[in-house]
């Protein structure tokens, strides 16, 4: 029993490897934030192309989204890392991680945004047109601002998911938190304790992110956009 509990003594290991762990954590954050940022921009563009583009553009955007959503993230990372070099495209593990997560997140975010765009009623278009706005003016000044607000909860969810999901980058050796954990464990052979530490760090940052995200959601809240008191 005592032996079992002893496994949970992790403070020593945490302190002695603090620098390495934080380096990993920093990369994890960097990866999640960059993937989120560019994934959002690309995702909104894909959603616009899919919802409002002419036939070919709309088809291309749909094809992209379905391709990415229909294949495992792991396979996408492997293709970027192992399958491109024979064609002369050689990317570092870090580049592949950034690129892979941006491209992947964009597809999912495109779908969230498209759902929100379609939730904006026909009446909003008609009202904008009746004022003399053109199609793209209507999209940028009326439709997108509303769609983006509807998308916020889904985006926040995506960010929290990304924070954890970036650990897959460990497969190609990008220096994220999980990779650093593996590195530490391979030297001290304390696999259980090290991965326990890693798991706790993930839990803490996800809880912290969830809390911050909740704050942001309330900050940008507008009456009529889904977080009203009446719904609680």
């Amino acid at each position: 029993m005592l032996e079992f509990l002893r496994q949970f003594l992790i403070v020593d290991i945490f302190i002695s490897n603090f620098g390495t762990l934080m380096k990993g954590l920093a990369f994890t954050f960097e990866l999640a934030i960059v993937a989120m940022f560019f994934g959002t921009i690309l995702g909104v563009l894909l959603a616009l192309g899919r919802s409002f583009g002419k036939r070919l553009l709309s088809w291309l955007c749909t094809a992209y989204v379905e391709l990415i959503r229909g294949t495992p993230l792991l396979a996408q990372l492997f293709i970027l890392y192992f399958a491109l070099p024979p064609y002369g495209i050689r990317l570092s593990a870090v580049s592949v991680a950034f690129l892979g997560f941006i491209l992947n997140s964009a597809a999912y975010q495109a779908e969230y945004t498209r759902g929100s765009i379609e939730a904006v009623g026909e009446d909003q278009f008609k009202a904008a047109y009746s004022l003399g706005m053109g199609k793209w003016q209507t999209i940028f000044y009326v439709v997108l601002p509303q769609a983006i607000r509807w998308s916020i909860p889904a985006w926040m969810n995506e960010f929290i998911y990304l924070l954890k999901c970036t650990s897959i980058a460990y497969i190609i050796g990008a220096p994220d938190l999980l990779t650093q954990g593996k590195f530490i464990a391979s030297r001290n052979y304390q696999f259980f304790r090290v991965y326990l530490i890693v798991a706790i760090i993930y839990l803490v940052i996800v809880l912290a992110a969830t809390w911050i995200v909740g704050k942001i959601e309330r900050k940008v809240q507008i009456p009529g956009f889904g977080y009203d008191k009446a719904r609680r």
Partner: protein
Amino acid sequence: MAGKPLLRVVNVKKSFGDKVVLDGVSLTLNKGETKVIIGPSGTGKSTLLKSINRLVVPDEGEIWLEETEIIRCKNINAVRQKIGYVFQDFGLFHHLTALENVMIGLTKVKKMPKKEAVEKARYELNRVGLSGIEDLYPAQLSGGQKQRVAIARALAMEPKLMLFDEPTSALDPELIGEVLAVMKELAESKMTMLVVTHEMGFARSVSDEIIFIEKGKIVEQTSPEKMFRDPEHQRTREFLFKLKDLYGEGGE
């Protein structure tokens, strides 16, 4: 009324699939006139109004706003700026405050400087009796307030013509009055208005002419006095009788 009409609708036809919605409608509206369109639901009143600012494109006919033919014109956005449109379901932009709702057409379409637009928007809100609610969002307004913001938004563009598509149909009975009062004032200030409504009191006291449409055709158009006292057609009589049944006598 002398001079050229402001709006001329000539033999407009529109079908959705097999269903003929407008079957050769013609009417004119002179500057400063208010005409009210009545008729059973599904007879093309809304389609007619939407045709006038080309939210619906007619199959045949011509619609002239002064010297511009609307159905075939190149720059429809320029025409729409001159035509205010008030919707049954308000059509306020949910993400903007009342003030911003009125401003957006000024800043984004007319490219008015923001400061000027704020002033103009305040003035228009004040004109429809809505001072003090500038910073509220549509979700925080009553139906009557929403519709008045929508009217202010249309007026801010300084339109030559205002179209009202059943502006009080989505309102609770006790809120209808405030919207009608604003419309009445507008009519008295010689705004040119085409109004689809079942509010017979409004039609009777404000309109220069009442147009009865059924099955996509104008059955009768005449002065309110004649329409209510002695309509030509049996169908008009029956329809007005039904309305009276539903909405009361409709006097002032």
